[in-house]
């Protein structure tokens, strides 16, 4: 059976702007300059795309090497749909604030749930 040599799957993506989804949930956008069979990547002009709800901000990172095991997905960015429709670009300070607010809201939700569970224990 004819099998392509390992690590050739990404040749078509070279020099394109890609959105890289990482295992820890972070998203990095950059130009793919190099890769290997493990999907280790070299991204030029990389930015971290921080998303909170329908807002996002790009934080410049520079030249990034990503270890393959952390890669979930590489998305080819459609330049006509970047930024994504329905999403609003905000400043880094604004997104940090939104992130804090989201964290706070989650904390409140968690304590509320804990209290409810406590009450239900009496039943």
């Amino acid at each position: 059976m004819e099998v392509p040599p390992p690590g050739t799957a990404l040749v078509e993506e070279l020099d394109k702007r890609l959105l890289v989804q990482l295992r820890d949930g972070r998203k990095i956008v950059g130009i793919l300059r190099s890769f290997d069979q493990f999907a280790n990547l070299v991204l030029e002009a990389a930015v971290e795309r921080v998303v909170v709800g329908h807002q996002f901000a790009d934080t410049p990172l520079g030249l990034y090497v990503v270890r393959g095991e952390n890669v979930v997905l590489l998305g080819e960015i459609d330049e006509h749909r970047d930024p994504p429709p329905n999403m609003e670009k905000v400043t880094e300070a604004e997104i940090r604030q939104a992130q804090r607010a989201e964290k706070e809201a989650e904390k409140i939700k968690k304590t509320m749930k804990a209290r409810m569970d406590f009450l239900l224990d009496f039943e």
Partner: protein
Amino acid sequence: MLFYSYFKTLVGKEVTVELKNDLAITGTLHSVDQYLNVKLHSVKVTNETKYPHMLSVRNCFIRGSVVRYVQLPANSIDVEILHDATRREARG
């Protein structure tokens, strides 16, 4: 190599790939390699409101190691052939 060969026969079909991070992506299977990395074209994320940033992605490469399930069109599977191939492969 059985599943690699099998996935190769599915190229061009519409599949849904469910990832270990609970993201589910539907798209046309464009290619697959021996690690079962897959490339999908014209992708659509099942829960778009939760992942709005994915709207700017049309084609994508998914690393085989993060895939949990692949949902296939039922009519594209001939279990009989797969069964035979499994026995043949096991015999070596």
